[in-house]
């Protein structure tokens, strides 16, 4: 019998994840033991506190690089640090939106329209479970791009997904839609997880190892059964592509984005994308890099379809959240070109793009939370007509985020688009660049259409108004817009930072 080996864990390197997890657990305890009155403020403090603390801790370990943080299960390297930093920052900004309890039902279990629900609403109580759920999801997201073996990957995937399934169903208004979003998200998410796991099984079968390093070694060696490898790549990709919302695994995106409470949509649209692409980049850049002849053609086709589909269908949308969902699909396509690029500039560009896109997304959904009428948020685009008259502030911010999505110079989106397309071009994928450029033009059309609507159309007198945002929401909006502009005007520091840090430890 072999000796029991004490697992060696590097708590410092894992500290950001652990802090967030700790915060989540404290949050659960708060739910259990604190009175309803103090819960909101306590939860908010704990949530923001642990996120900020994690971010600070992350800054301290930014130059660390090791495979041994958790016995080879977690890779701490520049890429991880950057992804985790992006996720944490986005989470902080999103939590500021989530803090506006107006969006959430008080009693998630209550049947819509039941006396129970009415009572709970009248009691003036607030839903606070969402905070620990958020923290759990964040912890999963932090782990996902850092995962260095298939088990951790799968666990992290579920860890980030399960809380999100629940959070999607917490909306106060339009409960049926919200629940439907949760159901769809859950069923399809579980479905795709199964594909992911099936793929993982085949990769394990191919390489005889669950660690990414082991798979890499097998791919380099080329001794295994290629059928297993190909099956593995295909099925594993499905799980990842589902999470990023690539066509044809995108179908949940518009429905869930629309149905979920807007702050949650903001959070998951931005942060999930970072986490999923982080994991994807790690897998494809390290383990499967040498098999790129096998997966590049398929990924290129998906990227092309995704870019075009997202852009084209977005044109026809009449709901602002759905439009942003399709826009996020198109952006997933753009980001895929960074994965396909498979070079250092592709990695840098993808990280920059994810951060820039995530921040702008939080900002854009943040603006969506402000536009309301008597029945809650107004997401019907027709009712957004003349928004600039109602609130120049909101309209201008939203226009700014849209221009960033469209990739207009002097916004972060342009630098992101430039860097990711140039990385793709550098790797020889010229057709991707052409399609990317064309679909950017199509995409520009619907972004501009919304700007026209807000600025050049007259407002109908339909009770739509723009509320005055709370301090937290306001600061999110201001920070996101400042970052969006700053990264467009002077991106050099961040690009340098990414350039110096971003790499995968192998």
């Amino acid at each position, binding site marked *: 019998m072999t000796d029991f080996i004490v697992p060696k864990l590097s708590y410092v390197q894992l500290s950001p994840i652990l802090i967030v997890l700790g915060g989540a657990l404290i949050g659960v305890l708060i739910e259990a033991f604190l009175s309803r009155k103090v819960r909101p403020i306590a939860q908010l403090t704990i949530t923001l506190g642990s996120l900020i603390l994690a971010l600070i801790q992350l800054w301290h370990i930014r130059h660390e690089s090791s495979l041994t943080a958790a016995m080879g299960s977690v890779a701490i390297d520049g890429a991880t640090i950057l992804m985790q930093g992006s996720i944490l920052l986005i989470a902080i900004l999103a939590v500021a939106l989530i803090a506006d309890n107006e969006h959430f039902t008080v009693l998630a279990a209550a049947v819509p329209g039941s006396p129970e629900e009415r009572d709970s609403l009248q009691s003036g109580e607030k839903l606070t479970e969402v905070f620990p759920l958020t923290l759990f999801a964040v912890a999963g997201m932090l782990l996902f791009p850092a995962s260095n073996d298939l088990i951790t990957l799968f666990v992290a995937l579920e860890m980030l997904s399960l809380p999100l399934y629940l959070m999607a169903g917490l909306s106060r208004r339009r409960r049926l839609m919200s*629940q439907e979003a*949760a*159901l769809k998200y859950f069923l399809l998410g579980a479905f795709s*997880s*199964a594909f992911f*796991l099936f793929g993982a*099984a085949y990769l394990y079968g191919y390489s*005889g190892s669950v660690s990414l390093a082991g798979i890499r070694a097998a791919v380099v060696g080329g001794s295994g059964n290629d059928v297993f490898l190909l099956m593995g790549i295909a099925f594993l990709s499905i799980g990842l592509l589902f999470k990023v919302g690539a066509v044809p695994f995108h179908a949940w995106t518009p429905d869930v984005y629309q149905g979920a409470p807007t702050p949650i949509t903001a959070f998951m649209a931005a942060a999930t994308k970072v986490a999923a692409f982080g994991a994807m980049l790690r897998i494809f850049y390290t383990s499967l890099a040498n098999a790129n002849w096998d997966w590049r053609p398929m990924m290129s086709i998906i990227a092309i379809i995704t870019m075009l589909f997202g852009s084209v269908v977005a044109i026809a949308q009449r709901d602002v959240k759905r439009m942003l969902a399709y826009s996020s699909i198109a952006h997933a396509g753009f980001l895929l070109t960074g994965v396909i690029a498979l070079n250092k500039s592709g990695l840098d560009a993808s990280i920059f793009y994810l951060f820039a896109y995530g921040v702008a997304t939080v900002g854009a959904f943040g603006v969506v939370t402000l536009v309301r009428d008597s029945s809650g948020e107004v997401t019907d685009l027709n009712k957004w007509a003349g928004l600039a008259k109602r609130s120049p502030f909101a309209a201008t911010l939203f226009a700014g985020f849209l221009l960033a999505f469209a990739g207009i110079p002097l916004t972060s989106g342009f630098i992101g688009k430039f860097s990711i397309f140039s990385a793709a071009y550098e790797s020889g994928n010229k057709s991707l660049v052409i399609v990317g450029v064309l679909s950017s033009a199509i995409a520009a059309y619907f972004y501009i259409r919304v700007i026209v609507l807000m600025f050049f159309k007259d407002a109908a007198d339909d009770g739509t108004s723009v509320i005055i945002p709370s301090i937290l929401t306001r600061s999110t909006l201001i920070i996101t817009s400042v970052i969006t502009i700053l990264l467009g005007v002077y991106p050099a520091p961040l690009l340098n930072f990414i350039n110096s840090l971003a790499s995968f430890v192998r």
Partner: protein
Amino acid sequence: MNPANYLYVSALLFTIGAIGVVVRRNAIVVFMCVELMLNACNLAFVTFARINGNLDGQVVAFFTMVVAACEVVVGLAIIVTIYRSRRSASVDDASLLKR
């Protein structure tokens, strides 16, 4: 016995599960089909563990079971909530969000 046969079974189970998800209307059944797929994966893992001669695959299978259990918790919660609101467990009824 050829270990490949276990793989065929696993693939068959996975396919049945996947088709079940697509074909069945009841949310619970759909969910069970997903579980079937996960178990197909488990079978594949265990088989591969056997083929490769290490235990990693079996470890994964344990993790999968735990995760699946968690999924059940969350999933049933969601399904029950929606059943209470709609008085129906058919996934086709929940189609407010479209286009």
